[in-house]
């Protein structure tokens, strides 16, 4: 009798140890690229939450080059085959990634969508900045800077990405609705390449010498425009409202080429994303959309 209880105790101890060692939950985090500081912040937030939870391991994946939906699809497929416990995905294309996300859901793997929307249901939750509202807020901010009148140039990241579409249409719709004396005269796509955005901004200023302001809808576009303004000696004369926060945007805010930047909370996306995935595995209820907020940062906020 004693022997069996001892054995039971021992085996349960062993089992406990084993589960302790092997019950590490594997969460895969797939972002759009591995370079933008935005994604590195998402990763940081996810890792912080994982450390807090203790039994979650974050596997970070991102296309090596720039935004590539095919590469992301492959990464989700690999995660499914690896039988991970949850997938956190920032889809670079809302329709291209939909089928593979549906496959993951069919395989009973909880999927958390981060940053940009996806054209399918069944995911656990969607954490994002309300990009459309952020675009509108950027329009309001720029309107104030240019006294609600004049020509505006827009440089977007990539065509087709849900985030970019929402940010630009939020901006353009607000201008049309509220500021009849402001006119969007040019819309370009830099794919987030700073050198490309720099050239495009220069050309827009050449074609419109009386340009009042610029709107850059992501980090690369914003920094490219700010470099163009610096090169043309128009920093502060032509107003710039940008997006995101990085060493380069801080430089722009400080030297006066960027008047304001719309700053998201990417760390929150990663942090809450891992939390929601964990809760859903535990069977807790998770709300379908979590707004991680955006705030207007100006040079004054840096002090």
């Amino acid at each position: 009798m004693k022997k069996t209880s001892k054995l039971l105790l021992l085996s349960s101890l062993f089992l406990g140890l084993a589960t302790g060692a092997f019950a590490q939950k594997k969460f895969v985090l797939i972002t759009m690229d591995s370079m933008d500081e935005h994604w590195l912040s998402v990763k940081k937030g996810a890792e912080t939450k994982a450390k807090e939870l203790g039994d979650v391991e974050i596997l970070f994946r991102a296309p090596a080059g720039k935004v590539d939906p095919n590469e992301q699809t492959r990464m989700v497929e690999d995660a499914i085959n690896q039988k991970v416990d949850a997938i956190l995905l920032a889809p670079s294309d809302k329709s291209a990634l939909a089928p593979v996300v549906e496959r993951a859901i069919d395989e009973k793997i909880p999927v958390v969508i981060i940053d940009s929307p996806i054209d399918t249901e069944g995911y656990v939750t969607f954490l994002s900045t309300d990009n459309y509202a952020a675009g509108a807020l950027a329009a309001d901010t720029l309107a104030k800077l240019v006294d609600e009148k004049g020509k505006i140039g827009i440089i977007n990241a990539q065509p087709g990405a849900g985030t970019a579409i929402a940010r630009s249409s939020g901006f353009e719709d607000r201008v049309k609705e509220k500021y009849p004396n402001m006119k969007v005269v040019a819309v370009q796509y830099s794919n987030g390449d700073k050198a490309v955005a720099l050239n495009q901004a220069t050309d827009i200023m050449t074609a419109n010498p009386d340009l009042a302001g610029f709107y850059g809808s992501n980090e690369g576009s914003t920094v490219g425009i700010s470099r163009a303004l610096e090169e043309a000696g128009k920093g502060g004369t032509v107003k710039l409202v940008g997006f995101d926060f990085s060493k380069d945007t801080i430089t722009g805010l400080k030297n006066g080429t960027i008047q304001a930047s719309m700053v998201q909370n990417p760390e929150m996306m990663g942090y809450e994303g891992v939390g929601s995935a964990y809760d859903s595995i535990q069977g807790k209820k998770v709300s379908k959309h979590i707004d991680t907020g955006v705030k207007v940062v100006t040079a004054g906020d840096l002090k």
Partner: protein
Amino acid sequence: MSSNIGVLKDIRKKVGEENFQILSVLSGLVAMMIFFSMASPYFFTMNNMMTVALQTSIIAIIAIGQTFVLITTGIDLSIGSNMAIAGIVTSLCLVNGVPMIIAILLGLLSGIIAGLINGLLIVLGDLPPFVVTLGTMSIVRGLALVITKGIPVSGLPKAFRYIGNGKVFDIPFSVIIMFLLTGIFGFILSKTKLGTHIYACGSNIEAARLSGINTKKTLIQVYVFSGFLAACSGIVLASRIASGQPSAGIGYELFAVASAVIGGTSLAGGEGIITGTLIGALVIGVLRNGLNLMGVSAFLQEILIGVVIILAVFADRIKRR
């Protein structure tokens, strides 16, 4: 020995004929410029012409190297990645307090090493250039990401910004670099023995080898040139955007090929001139700038640039028939 001289003479004659090629590309460029001048009042201004030259300089510099490679029937797909690594090496050195001249030299060295590795693999391993440079394109891009952990290197000293932003008598410094490199490498290709050897390798490598040319050494030199020029361009780019970007230069190798091809370089090898390539790069630069000034949609621009590339090659084909 007499056959050797015969081969070389033949090649020289061919180079002479290519002046005609330059003239036709140049007239295309001028026609385009007249059109844009009429379409937009802002196009033909001193300021905008300088802008076009500035925007073109980065592509033109890598396209010079690509021309050398294409003449030998090769291709260098790694130049975009080599641009990034040179920019990063230089930026990292600068941020860590290395004197500017040394930082730039180390950046250039990284490109030379990349070119040397390409050349050695192609020649000693007898491997196709397309595959070798496709591999190094990925390896070098990966290196750029690993070194920087994917984060751009910013906070470069003000003095370094001069390379990409400074002006000498109102001419952007990077445009001067572009013309300087065009002059030097144009001279190497058209006036030196090495240049003749490069054409010979592209026309018929076996004949070149039999006539006593060290074809292996010649090919390696060509890839070193390409790596060096990619590094030059990468450093100018890093200076222009004031940071070392691991993602710099993605897709630029295709612009370089397009510039060379529009400028009359044959993908079959043996033909091509540096001035032609410079004009080819200007054609693409003027087209982008002009369409931007006219307010043509970004999507339509992609189509038009593709059309011009195909038309340029097509016109060349017809002329040769």
